[in-house]
């Protein structure tokens, strides 16, 4: 043992110094490199794992949403078609109703017009007769230069109006 110690110059003080050197290396490497690096790598790993999970979840949500979208779209199309058909039907009915109403209004208007025209005509004829009678009376008065009485007037008027 002594020969080994003397041959290799084994010195416990140097051994302790080297243990101390290694302790410094271990401590510094652990504090400054390994600990923060492993923390960083762990965090990054968690982040990546979370990202992958989120992506998978999002893909599932997207797929689900697409299915929902398709369903809603089909439902909306069906509803729109029904709504469209109903609207067309309603519009047809409305159109017929309006047409009917317009026809009846026109008919009423025509009949009213006819009535008015008839009344106007009757009134015009009566007025014209009166005018003619008074004209005839005035002419006759001038001709005979005598005032005719009321009975003559009425009689004459009747005769004239029957012309």
């Amino acid at each position, binding site marked *: 043992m002594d020969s080994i110690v003397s041959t290799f110059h084994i010195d416990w003080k140097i051994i302790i*110094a080297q243990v101390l050197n290694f302790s410094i*290396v271990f401590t510094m490497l652990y504090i*400054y490199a390994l600990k923060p690096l492993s923390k960083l790598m762990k*965090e990054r790993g968690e982040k990546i794992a979370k990202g992958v999970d989120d992506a998978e979840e999002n893909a599932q949500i997207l797929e689900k949403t697409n299915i929902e979208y398709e369903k809603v779209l089909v439902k909306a199309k069906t509803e729109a078609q029904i709504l469209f058909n109903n609207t067309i039907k309603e519009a047809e009915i409305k159109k017929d109703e309006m047409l009917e109403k317009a026809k009846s209004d026109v008919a009423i208007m025509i009949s009213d017009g006819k009535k008015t025209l008839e009344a106007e005509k009757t009134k015009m004829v009566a007025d014209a007769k009166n005018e003619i009678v008074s004209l005839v009376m005035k002419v006759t008065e001038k001709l005979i230069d005598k005032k005719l009485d009321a009975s003559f007037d009425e009689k004459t008027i009747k005769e004239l109006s029957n012309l």
Partner: protein
Amino acid sequence: MKEKILHETTIFAEKITDFGSFHITNALITSWVAVAVIVIISIFLRRKLKEIPKGIQNVFEVFAEGALSMCDQVTNDRALSIRIFPMAISVFFFILVNNWLGLIPLGGFGLIENHEGIKSFIPFLRGGTADVNTTLALAVSAVIGANLFGVVSVGIWKTFNKYVNLSVLGSIFTKIKKEPTVIIVAPITFFVGLIEIAGEVAKIASLSFRLFGNIFAGEVLLVSISALVAYVVPIPFLFLEILVGFIQALIFSMLLVVYFTISSSDHDHEPARNASHNDAGGESHEHQKLTQGVV
């Protein structure tokens, strides 16, 4: 006439100066430089750490991931690998930087010492691991660290029983009626536990002298080749020594992982591992396999 100066590669680290009774050797100076290099790199790395890795962080992360995967191959348990990893990687870097610093051609700087009329050249720098004191310090740290790790992992009683197996002696009284053979098996198991103590010493010796032998042999080889044919011929050997330095650092740190893994395993529940652990004078089957694989 020009005086002859002796350039001799000694098996021990040469003394540069004294600090009281403490001898400061050239290997110790190299180790301090190695410590400074590692500390500077660590601080630099800490300052450059970013969520999106770049440059040195990228290299270090790739290296750390690879090293952790190698640990996994030994431990088969990522959680255990993560616990052992800081120690293993520290040992790896300390040895690697020490090995490579010994190869830097700065050996030309040194002292001329006059010893009994013979002048000899003492370089300021010598590979830290080319001194037994350094490798012994690392081996002792590794073995003591492994046992402390075992105490923390499986408890002090189980770790103690690995060496002084009192529980197996106690089982003679409790199991003798059921298994009469226990009276033979228990003392043998107890004796195997005592051999484990010798195995721990063997671990220190094998770890320290393997590393020292390889690195010192490399330095001697480089000096010899340079003395024979200078300048160009030693270059391939220099590259070889760079590789040897890396491999030796890797072997030492992987053996450390093996020792830590063995210490942290509960031997009562792992008879197969226990059996393999007791062969080859305390060096496990995994150890042998790994050593064969790497070397």
